[in-house]
């Protein structure tokens, strides 16, 4: 199972180019270009802030930062999965022509999203630094939270892109699932707002831990508890193992089905 990862290390130059190409293509032809990386989440946050501060009436020190901190983590997850979904199918021409380690396709998308996330964080920290709320010292725990989020998202991306090769239905099904997961994840609300039973339900979502942990360290200034680290990393590593297993078991057949 680890053999494909070793191969990926050998092809790291290729992975690097695919990450750069993905970023180039994403913002190609737009006047603001790369600035959209920062502008996009800020505008999205503005819309949600206007809507939810009117209707949801959630008491928070700064609802905008409360929302943005969790939203960044969520967007990384949903875009990593959503854009990896067709990464094998879209590259069928290349796969049928030349031998490549197939892992570069989903991983390059996760990688370019990771760069995007880092820009997100810069935007957030600038906003927070200028606001009354400020930047808590617990931001030093952010890398550990991001690693959890990265492992989880990579696992989900591997699983979903392999399944999509064999069942194109997932290109239609996944956006719906993602929308449901978005509402089931405490992004624009607090996890305790659904009562103790509701919170148990929320924890079933795999993205619960990294999203909540990101908010803890970026917004509340609290260090996530041992339970959150344990369950968060446990879920993430399990999903990565499943994703890698499904991917490596099926990748030999990609060229015949894609």
């Amino acid at each position: 199972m680890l053999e494909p990862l070793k191969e990926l290390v050998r092809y790291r130059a290729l992975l690097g180019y695919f990450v750069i190409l993905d970023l180039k293509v994403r913002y190609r032809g737009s006047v603001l270009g790369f600035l959209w990386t920062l502008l996009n989440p800020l505008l999205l946050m503005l819309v949600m802030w206007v809507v939810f501060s009117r209707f949801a009436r959630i008491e928070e020190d700064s609802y905008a930062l409360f929302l943005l901190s969790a939203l960044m983590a969520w967007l990384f997850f949903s875009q990593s999965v959503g854009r990896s979904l067709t990464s094998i199918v879209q590259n069928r021409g290349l796969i049928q022509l030349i031998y490549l380690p197939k892992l570069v396709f989903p991983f390059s998308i996760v990688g370019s999203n990771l760069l995007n996330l880092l820009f997100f964080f810069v935007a957030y920290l600038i906003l927070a630094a200028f606001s009354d709320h400020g930047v808590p010292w617990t931001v030093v725990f952010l890398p550990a939270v991001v690693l959890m989020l990265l492992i989880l998202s990579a696992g989900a991306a591997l699983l979903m892109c392999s399944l999509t090769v064999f069942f194109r239905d997932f290109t239609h099904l996944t956006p719906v699932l993602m929308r449901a997961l978005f509402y089931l994840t405490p992004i624009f609300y607090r996890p305790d707002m659904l009562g103790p039973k509701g919170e148990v339900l929320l924890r079933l979502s795999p993205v619960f831990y990294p999203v909540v942990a990101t908010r803890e360290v970026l917004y509340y200034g609290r260090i996530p508890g041992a339970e959150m680290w344990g369950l968060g990393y446990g879920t993430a590593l399990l999903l990565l193992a499943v994703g890698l297993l499904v991917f490596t078991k099926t990748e030999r057949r990609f060229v015949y089905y894609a």
Partner: protein
Amino acid sequence: MHELETRERETPAIEARGLGIQYRRYLRQVTTLKDSVVGLFKGSHYQSYWALRELSLLIRPGERVGVIGPNGAGKTTLLKAVAGVLPPSEGEMITRGRIAPLFGLGGGFRNDLTGRENIFLNGAILGLRRKEIEERVGRIIDFAEIGDFIDAPLHTYSSGMRARLGFSVATDINPEILLLDEVLSAGDARFRTKAIERLESLFSAGKTVVVVSHAMNQVERLSDRVVYLHKGRIVADGEPKEVIRLYLADTGKGAPAAPPAPGGQGEGRRSDNANFDE
């Protein structure tokens, strides 16, 4: 017989053992969950067929092997199996050394990138590290004769320029195994001469070569061994002149004759795994 023994002691560059490649020919467009559920009741929505079957082949380092056979014999499939593009459906395919696939040259090229960026991308696709590409990039640009256009986007290139660039990258990766599907059509007559010179220098440097072609004179000139494929199996394997003569005789008749009785095992013998269902 002595030569045969030394042959087998040497570690082969390409080794196929009982190789089978199975394709699916879809009767309907795409696979969906619905199709696979319906398929449980109505039977499958595709037909499988073997493009290659029970194929065993040992190619020593430095051997130059021509692959001939009628359309649909599995020649290109064999080349793609050697390149690692098509994993075996059954059996094994083992290769030793870096492979330069000279088919679909520049297939990894992107129109929105410059020539230089495409050299880096294509080099990375062929498995080179960044440093290795940097060492070669000047030489590749010179050989491809792209000149000032190298920093212009690829969509401004003529098809000849693209082919030249593709050939230059693919042959500059210091391959041990070269795979050719039909002999080059890259660029104009002058570039073709240069390309053939480069190939010949690679050939004489002891590289292993597998060339698929319908042009018998080229196969005979380039190869020191010819494999004759028909319906995914080896009909004959041996000395070029002999095998080509056999193939041409067969095409005259429409189908290959039954394998000869065992015992007559000279060069150019028919392979013993050539048994046909039809």
